[in-house]
């Protein structure tokens, strides 16, 4: 094990400053009394357009003004969830940093925060891509602060803010995100937005399974995991490249060719 415990900077600042180069929004700073909070609920009731000629009752290919495009609402729901995830990781970092030294995972707190920072930076990229999509439809993206303010702190976590509980909550939230994205894929009308949603869903799915495996003891930190390598745990924010952002199609490179 090469895990290190260096408190060379505030964990909260570390997460908050982990903005990716192309992220377009400033991070949401958590305030005092930070608590992990989080994620989303999207119930997408299906309105299938699977029959040829389907147009959702509005003029077929491009009928209606772009701002009225039903996909805008779906994309904004996902954007709301991303903003809350970003805020939640900031809050979670605060809890982890403040964990009691008797916490069983106390020795891992620094590297866990580093991984959280990496995950948060990917959520920022997701948010930026969703903004692009919404604006491309002449829609108005939801306000970040307003969306993030919708976080509710679960009492089960504030009552027992262990690192394990933070990880469980994050894993559950990422699981919920993956499901919500998949449900949304089933109602988006334009294939390019279904592609975007699925490319993000696959990343949230990776977050979920890794956090779950670690907190449930199905995997342990390996010998190469350290503060220096934490940002390599999740190699790409998208499964397939989105705009200028790389996907798993280009990184990491194949072991065999």
């Amino acid at each position, binding site marked *: 094990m090469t895990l290190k415990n260096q408190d060379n900077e505030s964990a909260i600042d570390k997460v908050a400053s982990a903005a990716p180069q192309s992220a377009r929004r400033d991070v949401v700073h958590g305030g005092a009394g930070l608590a992990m909070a*989080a*994620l989303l*609920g*999207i*119930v997408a009731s299906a*309105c299938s357009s*699977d029959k*040829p000629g389907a*147009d*959702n009752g*509005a003029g077929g*290919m491009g*009928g*209606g003004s772009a701002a009225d*495009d*039903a996909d805008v609402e779906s994309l904004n*729901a996902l954007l*709301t*969830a991303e903003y809350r995830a970003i805020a939640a990781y900031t809050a979670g970092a605060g809890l982890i940093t403040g964990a009691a030294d008797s916490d069983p995972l106390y020795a891992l707190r620094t590297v866990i925060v580093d991984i959280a920072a990496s995950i948060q930076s990917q959520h920022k990229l997701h948010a930026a891509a969703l903004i692009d999509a919404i604006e491309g439809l002449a829609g108005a993206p939801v306000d970040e602060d307003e969306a993030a303010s919708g976080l*509710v702190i*679960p009492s089960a*976590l504030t009552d027992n803010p262990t690192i394990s509980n933070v990880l*469980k909550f994050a*894993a559950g939230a990422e*699981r919920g995100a*993956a*499901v*919500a994205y*998949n*449900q949304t*894929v*089933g*109602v*988006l*009308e*334009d*294939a390019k937005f*279904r592609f975007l*949603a*699925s*490319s993000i*869903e696959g*990343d949230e799915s*990776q977050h979920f*399974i*890794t956090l*779950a495996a670690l907190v*449930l003891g*199905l*995997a*342990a*930190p390996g010998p190469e*995991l350290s503060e220096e390598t934490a940002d*390599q745990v*999740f190699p790409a924010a998208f499964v397939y490249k989105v705009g200028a952002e790389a*996907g*798993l199609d280009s990184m990491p490179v*194949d*072991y*065999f060719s």
Partner: protein
Amino acid sequence: MQKNGMTRRESLVRTAAATAGLGLAVSMSLATKKAMAKVSPQPNAKADNDLLNALLAAEYDAIATYTAGAGIIAGDAATPQATRDVVTDVAVHFQDQHKEHAAALKKLIEDTNGTPVEDSGEAKLPESFPAATATTTDVLKLATDKEKQAAYTYAQVMQSVSTQTAAKLIAAIGAVETQHFIVLYLLVEGFIATTDMTAASPTLVVPAAFVLDGYGTTNLESFAALDELLTLDPA
């Protein structure tokens, strides 16, 4: 079976948050709102079947690759038996999930009057893979490559798939391939290590074959055991 109907279906999004004290962020009802959307491309199930068949062929290749890999691991005497056992158990579990993916793809193709491709039963191995001298680690690397390729292929085809029905299934499978990939990748790179729990519960490593309910035996949407495991510890 983990399909528990609407109570569970509603709960992930509602109760993943709600049990943790969160409310819904958004509740959308596309059926009732006035907004319109551009349908693009126009739904064409026949054209989608070509894409679904390409994915089905990849699933068959993954199944055959895991079979070939298990044989290599069994013969790798230089690797401790305990390591080989846990790797094999997880690999067999992943293979089972690929079989479920293949069955779901095949069903959708047949439901839309298409003809599923035949299973060649042969693994397509890359030229640089040292089949004759491969180790357990080599098999893990090969599986990592294959899962990664599957993951991004599932996402890539989404740009062309025309029906929401096919898109939803493809997303429900593709996100599981990404889970296979990341677990294997992290193991190969030494970012995670197996534990006694891995050996005891290999089917929990990637617990669900699909993200959404309705396609196979397990899904992330309705999974009571997973709900319980991720319940926050009381004070």
